């Protein structure tokens, strides 16, 4: 028996890959819904956006691309939906990390406008300023005078063009921004000292699950107002937006059930590997 169990340590990894494929594909083929429990860091971001005053805008640093869209797509999708629903104007940009960020944000916004908010207008409800470089210098420039960092938006309109970009006519510097929500695989921590630390502007992150352990400390010290962690954070936020399970159709909600199934396979594989390890040890002794 111990000899047979010890073989569990040497299962060909390709069988594990195949098991994960099957387990993850199943919820895409068969409609399975699981409940989602909202964590405090997600609820804090939701509540904070709920309290946005009418004269302020939200800035979304959407610096992610295909490599992390599994997590980041859902994280911007739910927040954009919330902002559209509350008619809170927002500015999209991507600072430093990837020049593809603004394009991916456009895809998410186009989908939302087409499916849920056909009356929202570019230039009035949102503006995409495109990519910018400079890290902390860019952040400080945005805080002091946004026009010193961006002369035109991603479509080539001047920020002073009141006809095309009426929204930008009331955005001059950090005082007009209610919240900076940075979504990327690993958000730049420089937002915390150079914007929150110096100007007091609230910051929130949407990050890959792998990075979240680094950022939790900022939640405890209130340097972050909230955080969406991986697919889980996106699904939780969707649950706050849509209390009825049948109304949820964001990327986060779509991926959370297959993810649970995939995790189950990983847990089983870890348990089997450990059983094999202890069986082999007993055999040796």
């Amino acid at each position, binding site marked *: 028996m111990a000899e047979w169990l010890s073989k569990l340590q040497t299962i060909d990894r*390709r069988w594990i*890959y195949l098991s*994960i*494929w099957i387990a*993850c*594909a199943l*919820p*895409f*083929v*068969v*409609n399975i819904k699981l409940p989602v429990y909202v964590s405090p860091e997600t609820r804090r971001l939701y509540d904070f956006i709920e309290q946005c005053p009418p004269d302020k805008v939200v800035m979304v640093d959407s610096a992610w691309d295909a490599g*992390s*869209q*599994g*997590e980041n*797509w859902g994280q911007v999708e739910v927040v954009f939906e919330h902002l559209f629903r509350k008619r809170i104007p927002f500015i999209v940009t991507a600072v430093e990390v990837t*020049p*593809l960020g603004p394009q991916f944000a456009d895809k998410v916004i186009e*989908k939302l406008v*087409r499916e849920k908010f056909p009356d929202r207008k570019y230039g009035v409800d949102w503006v995409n300023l*495109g*990519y*910018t*470089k*400079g890290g*902390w210098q860019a952040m400080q420039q945005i805080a002091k005078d946004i026009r010193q*960092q*961006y*002369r*035109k938006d*991603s479509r080539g309109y001047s920020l002073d063009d009141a006809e095309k970009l009426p929204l930008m006519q009331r955005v001059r510097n950090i005082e007009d921004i209610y919240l900076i929500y940075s979504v990327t695989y690993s958000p730049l*921590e*420089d937002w*915390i*000292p*150079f914007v929150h*630390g*110096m100007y007091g502007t609230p910051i929130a992150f949407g990050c*890959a*699950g*792998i*990075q*979240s*352990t680094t950022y939790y*400390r900022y939640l*405890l*010290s209130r*340097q972050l107002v909230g955080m969406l*962690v*991986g*697919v*889980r954070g996106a699904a939780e936020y969707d649950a706050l937006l849509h209390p009825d399970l049948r109304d949820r159709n964001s*990327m986060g909600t*779509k*991926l959370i059930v*297959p*993810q649970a199934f*995939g*995790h189950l396979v*990983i847990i089983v594989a870890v348990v089997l590997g450990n059983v094999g390890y202890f069986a082999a040890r007993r055999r040796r002794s």
Partner: protein
Amino acid sequence: MEGAEVWQIWLAAIVTLGIYSYLISDNKLYRLLLNVMIGLGVGYNFIIMWKQVLAPLWWEPMTRGFAAVFNGFAPGSAGALWVLVGLLGTLWYFQFSRKYLWLSRIVIGMTLGAGAGVVFKQQLLMNIPQITDSFRPFIARADGTPLVGGSAAPLSLWMSLNNIIFVGTIVCVMVYFFFSFEHKWAPVRHTARLGRWLLMISFGAFFGNTVMTRMAVFLERLQFLLRDWLHVGGF
């Protein structure tokens, strides 16, 4: 992928499967696709960098400045000074010359000096709130304030326990990282051992999150292959 042409979906599906073919074994298709992706990324980044960063923030103000200079020092001539920034940036490339390497050291020195100053400020603004937050009352109210001199919130056993664990973890882990003396004294030895265990628990949380992220990357592609390419499911 909504609205995408059929050929785009097929191309994306073939590339995705080509990359995943590495799971079976390393192969030429995988390497080819990897190199194509790197090339595309570099090319795209270069164009975006020029169009959205260098052109509007450096080239256009500089050329307008020179136009004003040639127009008899009209207003806006100061923009021509941006040429100095370009010259300074060019000094980096003297890294490739043994003879003129010293020129690149000018700009390296400037970058290091500015960087050191900024990091000092960054660390203060980032870590001072962390240090102050680590001083927590062991008997706390529901909102985290202390029993004496706190808010009107009720006493919370949960918050108090949370704070005790938080401060206890900090102390244990810091003791573990005291390497300047041998951990012979029993209280120090046990505290350090507990610190090591707590670190192992946090590494476990790191690993769990790593699995979650890798899984999410895979699931997004799986969804694309099943729903957009093969039209299976659709939930």
